[in-house]
Structure formats: C-alpha cells, structure tokens
C-alpha cells in the first residue's frame, strides 16, 4: 500500500510542479505568431470549413463500412484450421450480408459518382424552393 501511496504522491506532485513552475518562471507573453494554431510546424492557411463534395462523403462512408466489416474476417482467418468447415460456413453467411450491402449500394446508385453528384445538387435546389 505504501509504495502505491508514494507513487501517487509523486505523480500528482510532478504534475503540479510542472504546471506551477512554468507559471512561476515564464510569464505568458502574447504575440500574433505565438497565438497561431500549431500543427506540426506548418503555418495554417485558409478556413477549416471548406466545402466538400457530397459524393466524396458517401464514398468515404462506404469505404469505412466495408473496411470495418472485412476487418471482422481477420480473427476467422487466423483461426481457419481450428474452426474448420463450420467456421467457413459462418464466415460465408457473414460474407453474404456484406455482399448484400454492396449490391444494395450499387443498385441505389451509391457507386456512381455522376449519379451521386446530380441527385445531391437536385436535392439542394429542391430544398431551397
């Protein structure tokens, strides 16, 4: 119990010391360059709220979706020998539903860039009516 207590005191003490010392030794001095957002040493340019094309967003969502679904196959692939044909059948059923998602997206025009951009612009113009 005692070592844990000493450890805890040291952790808290170190954090308090680090913040307190920096407050004591270096007073905050502001200048435009110092207050600039810091991102890996690169000077930021432009607005962060840029317009993004809607098809890009939908394709990105689909990529993430299928990526995550395929990821679930890794544990099965690692244990392929032990799981045998029963595991193969279960993975097959799983793949049927993944394929269903792909077919659905395809049939709804989710894979066609041109279709996506025309429907997206049609929706925005109709909602402005």
């Amino acid at each position: 119990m005692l070592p844990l207590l000493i450890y805890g005191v040291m952790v808290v003490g170190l954090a308090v010391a680090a913040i307190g010392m920096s407050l004591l030794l270096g007073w905050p001095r502001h200048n435009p360059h110092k207050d600039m957002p810091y991102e890996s040493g690169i000077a930021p340019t432009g607005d962060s709220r840029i317009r993004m094309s809607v098809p890009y967003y939908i394709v990105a969502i689909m990529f993430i979706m299928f990526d995550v679904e395929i990821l679930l196959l890794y544990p099965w692939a690692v244990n392929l020998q032990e799981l045998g044909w029963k595991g193969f059948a279960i993975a097959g059923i799983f793949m049927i539903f993944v394929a269903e998602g792909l077919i659905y997206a395809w049939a709804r025009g989710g894979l066609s860039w041109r279709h996506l951009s025309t429907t997206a612009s049609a929706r925005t113009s109709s909602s402005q009516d």
Partner: protein
Amino acid sequence: MSQLATLAPDIIMAFGGTLVLLLGTRRSDKAVNDFLRWLSVIIIGGAALALAYTRPNSLPAAEGWIISSSINIVFGVIFLAILAWTVLAAKAPEHAAGEWHALLIYAGNGMLILARSGSLAALFLGIEILSLSLYVLISFFCHRGMALRGGTMYLVLAAFASAFLVFGLALVYASFGTLDLAELAQRVSSKGLFHAPMAMLGFGLFIVGVGFKLAAVPFHMWAADVYEASPGPVAGLIASASKGAVIAAFIPFLFLVNTHGDILWLISAASMIVGNLMGLLELRVKRILAYSSIAHIGYILVGYLAGYNGVGITGVGAMIFYVVAYALAIAGAFTALSFIERDHELGVRDLRGVARVSPALAFCILVFIISLAGIPPAIGFFGKLYLFSAGVSAGYIWLPVLGLLGSAIGVYYYLRIIVNLYMTPGENPNLKISYTPLQISIIIATAAAIVFFGCFPQTMITALKLF
C-alpha cells in the same frame, strides 16, 4: 437439426429482410410497394409460425445464445404480431418502400433475439440490432419537421445508455465468470449478490441501461421529443414492441428484485407519478401519449416487482397480458393519429371536428384512449387490475396506491383528447384526413379487439397460456 429449428425464425427474418431490401431497389411505384408490403407480412408470418411451432424448452441454439422457453416463445409471437400489424397499418414511403419494410423486419429480428436471449452477449446484440433499425426509422421522413433532430437525439442517448448497459454486463461477467443467463442466475443464488460488490454495481448500471430503453423515470427525457419526431407507426412500435422486448429480456433477471428491489420500486413509483404529471402540462397529442407511455412503464414494473407471486395470474403473466393490452392501444393510437395530416406537430386543438369528418376514426381513437386510461369496457382496465392485484399479493401496498392515484391524474389529459375530438363546437377548415381502406379496417379491427378482450379477458389469458 433441432438447433436449426430453434434458429429458423431468425434466419427467415434476416434473409427475408435482405430480400425485401434488394427487391425494393428495382422500381418504386404503387404496385411494387404493395407487393413489398405483403411480402413483408408473409415473411413475418412465416417467422411467427416457425417460432410458434418450436418445441418449448428445447436445447439452446447458437452456443446458448438463443433459448426457447414457453414465455420467450409467447413474447416473440406477440412482437411479430405487432410488427406485422405495423407493416399493414403504416403508410410506407413512396420513394423507399424497400428500406422501410426491410428496416421494420430487421427491428423485428432484434426484438426476437432480445426476447429469447440466453446469454448476456445475445441480449446486447438484440438491443443493438433493434436500436440501429429504429435510429433510421425515426428520421425516415428526414425533410419533415423534427425528424432528423429526433433520430439524432435517440442515437446519441441510446448509444450512451448502451455504454452503461455493456459496462454493467462486463462487471457482472468479471465477478461471476459466465455470460449464460441460466448459469448466472444459479451462481447468483448460490453465492449471493451482497458479497460481490462489483456485480452489485454492474447490475445497477445494467438497470440504468434497461431503464433508458424503457423510458422509465429518471431516464425518460428523450421520450417526448423522439415520439413527436418519429412517424406515427414507428412511435407506436417503439412504445409497444420495442419496450416489450426489453421487458422480456429483463425477466430472466428477476433475482434482482431481492437486491435492487428498492431502486426498481423507486423507478416504478417515479414513472407513474412523473409521467402522469408531465402529461397534464402537454397540449401536443404525441407528447401526451409519450408521457402516458412513461407512466405505463411504471405500472408494468409493479408486475416485475411481483415476479412469480400473485393470486391466479402471476406478476409475470400480468406483465405479458399488459404488454399486449397496452400495445394494442398505444400502437393503434399513434397510427390512427398519423392519418390526420398536418404540416406542423399535431396539437390537441387540431383534433376538433375529426368526429364529424370521420366518425369511425374518431371512435377508434376514443377506444384506444379509454383503454390507455384503464376505463372498464376496454382491455386496459383488466391489464391494470391484474398488475396491481399481483403487486398487492406480493406485499407491495403503496405501489398500487400510487398507480391508482397516477391513473386518476392521467384521466384528465386523456379526457382532454376526447373532449377535443367530440365535444368542442366549431369547424376546423384545415382538417385533412387520409387513409386507405386497408388502414382504416385494421384500425377498426384493433379497436374491436380491445373491446372484445375487455369484455372477455379470459379468452386472451387462455390463448396466451398465462395460468
């Protein structure tokens, strides 16, 4: 092979939903929409038949995830019936009938898994399948009013509640070392919960998650907004079958009454009082029904606390009876109200003149409201009677008293709806009511069923084998 027979309803629902979804992408006109509607009803009916013919107490399937005791089968058939009812009574959207019906079927699949879950993991899986379908269904008509807001609200809060639930289940697993529900109940009864503080905490968090899904006070904040935002039939489905499925999944945890009974008592009492009091302040019909559904969860929890006690009909039996009685009334009310077309949210005053324009619809709404209020010729009266009598025979005197007080308060806002339907003079030129013959006949049949079972409750008790 018997394992496959136990799993058959889930297989039918999963593959059927997929079929409906893919067929819906080809064309969207009225013929296709009608075809998809009847195909969905056939799929749900097939699953219900497969479920009804599973042998009770056969071996658990899918590594113990799905069990089939007689209570679970009764619950499952009830939920599938409500789902088929919703599919028939709801107006499917023109542009996306495939998605609409497929999501309803997937939601039904979640309810089935939830109602028959044999392990903690299956319980979580069922809740997630159900909620994921409901997120989309709530904001299905996303250009209309608050639909997106309601769906997002439900998404965020339900995900938060799921985190509580799954953390609680993890703590329970950590202290008892099993996911299997039967084994868990055995280990809890042999070891006792009071010596396992981690499991006590885990079950407490579990009750938070369940309470959220049931919209029991103090986890009820989302109910009014979400119900108001969602399409009428979906609101009915959330209020009836979705909550019923969570109740069904909660029944194997009846041993919690010994340790967490006081908390459940408080939740039940608070739901009955707060739900009814908040209903008094509301002037919008869907929000009134939302608060009434909070109060009804309080009544149902009285039956849960009674457990297997009770004279004639046990607390659990009364709960099943009440879930059916309540589902008929609330799903009917929400769907019937969705026939009244408004461009803004439906207020109590918008109901004026409905009785003159469409006497049948007004009378059906009257029956649903009377059943919700628990006035004798309707089935809701017997539901409350069985719940409270089971509560009294289990030794809870104050809960039924609070429940009766709450019902008395509730009558006021139920009557407010009826007064505006029937007794307010004045024309309502903006009133527009639209329904298909199929929809109104289903609503009338539901109202007739409420009155029939209200006059002969014994028929339903024998049909559900509640004794």
